[in-house]
């Protein structure tokens, strides 16, 4: 068993990047991502990590550098938040289409305006369809562990896709948690050096990022979509291998006290631990409530999600982003899509909560479950609201 150390989650993320022995780090500072790259720049400056650290002038350049370095076969890392991700968004689509296995941590923060540096999922939802594999971490250990998992999945030749690890800003990034470290020898065995399939090299020139005319563009997108779906077995296999190594097993959809539960809370990210506490309180009162946590957002685990939820009467889906002018929150949309084809499926009641860093306590989760159960009982089967807004 690895050493258990109390450390800030951002520092743990940076330490994991170091353990992955990356070749290139390129980033531009933005709250709440800063501690990750600050620590990495220290590690490089102190000679503890032999990597190139690129101080670029924007996030657009940060990811562009990673695209270039990854194309030469260098293991590359970047990290951003919010407006930075928005500025980077153009390149996110390019990295995945060129099949470059970059790993990025997003310290999730809302998007302006009004300006607000705190957590919700608006930033990553703005690039939902960018073609990256996307994990949501529930706690610091998740963030740390998924660095190794992400690079191993990303660099597999049957995958070759970039990976986003979503880490809720402040709620995770700035808290100190006990982190169980993985010994370096184990990491080295789990994550061998990157062997690119194609790379920019003068001995064997290739063209990356060429033009595709209408006669072939659709074929390239089909190939890309199939590649993302095909990553699923590799993700499952990698989680299994990681679990066998550390004892920490991960799943695309995690369940907590869902056995025979009539009502299921559905969440993503750091809501998970608070919602677990709420479920414990409700179970103590004899209420039939469980929790479903979506860990893998892309590719969306439809089968695993249905398996976890189809027995329930109702799902209370708690989003951390709004789809303004749309059907509610993005997670609820996906959940409804997943269930649409089923003859018997639970009613989906959707709340948006925790916007711009507003705390959501166990009591809030209980209130949301109370409200949803009453509304559904009264026949409101299309419920949606932004929770806790003062009228």
């Amino acid at each position: 068993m690895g050493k258990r150390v109390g450390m800030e989650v951002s520092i743990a993320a940076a330490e994991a990047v170091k353990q992955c022995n990356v070749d290139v780090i390129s980033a531009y500072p933005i709250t709440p991502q800063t501690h990750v790259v600050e620590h990495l720049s220290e590690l490089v400056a102190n000679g503890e990590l032999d990597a190139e650290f690129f101080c670029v002038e924007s996030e657009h350049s940060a990811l562009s550098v990673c695209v270039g370095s990854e194309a030469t076969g260098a293991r590359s890392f970047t990290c951003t938040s919010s407006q930075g991700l928005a500025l980077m968004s153009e390149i996110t689509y390019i990295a995945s289409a060129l099949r470059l296995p970059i790993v990025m941590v997003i310290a999730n923060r809302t998007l302006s305006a009004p300006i607000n540096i705190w957590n919700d999922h608006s930033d990553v939802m703005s690039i939902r369809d960018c073609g990256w594999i996307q994990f949501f971490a529930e706690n610091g250990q998740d963030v740390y562990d998924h660095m190794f998992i992400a690079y191993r999945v990303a660099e597999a030749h049957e995958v070759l896709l970039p990976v986003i690890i979503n880490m809720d800003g402040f709620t995770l990034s700035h808290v100190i948690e006990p982190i169980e470290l993985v010994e370096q020898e184990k990491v080295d065995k789990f994550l061998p050096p990157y062997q690119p399939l194609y790379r920019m090299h003068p001995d064997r020139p290739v063209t990356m990022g060429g033009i595709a005319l209408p006669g072939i563009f659709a074929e390239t997108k089909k190939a890309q979509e199939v590649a993302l779906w095909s990553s699923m077995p590799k993700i499952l296999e990698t989680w299994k291998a990681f679990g066998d190594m550390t004892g920490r097993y991960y799943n695309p959809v995690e369940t907590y006290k869902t056995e025979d539960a009539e009502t299921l809370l559905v969440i993503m990210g750091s809501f998970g631990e608070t919602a677990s506490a709420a479920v414990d309180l409700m179970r103590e009162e004899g209420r039939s409530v469980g929790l479903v946590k979506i860990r893998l957002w892309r590719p969306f685990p439809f089968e695993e999600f249905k398996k976890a939820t189809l027995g329930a009467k109702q799902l209370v889906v708690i989003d951390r982003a709004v789809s303004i002018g749309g059907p509610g929150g993005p997670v609820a949309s996906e959940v409804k899509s997943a269930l649409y084809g089923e003859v018997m499926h639970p009613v989906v009641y959707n709340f948006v909560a925790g916007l711009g860093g507003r705390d959501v306590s166990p009591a809030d989760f209980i209130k949301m479950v109370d409200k949803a159960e009453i509304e559904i009982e009264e026949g409101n089967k299309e419920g949606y609201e932004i929770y806790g807004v003062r009228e």
Partner: protein
Amino acid sequence: MTKPESEWTWKELPAGTVMLEPGNADQYRTGDWKTLKPVLNKELCIHCGLCYIYCPDMSYNLNAEGYFIADLFYCKGCGICSKECPTGAITMVVEGEEK
């Protein structure tokens, strides 16, 4: 020699649509973009090669007789050669209407 784009299936594309064969742009017929094509009056040509130098698509090649001739497979008909020719030896004519 790579095959035309219309013959590729999605399964055959290299990951990331990487082009493994360098220089395959020479298979791309840009010549069908043009409405006007350059016609050389050999009597006026002084073999200076400015058409060859100015052509943005490198369509001009020196032939065995010492004339620079546009390869109409690539020539987009932009007319820069005609504009730059110091003796007015190159005329842009509507394709199919040349005499």
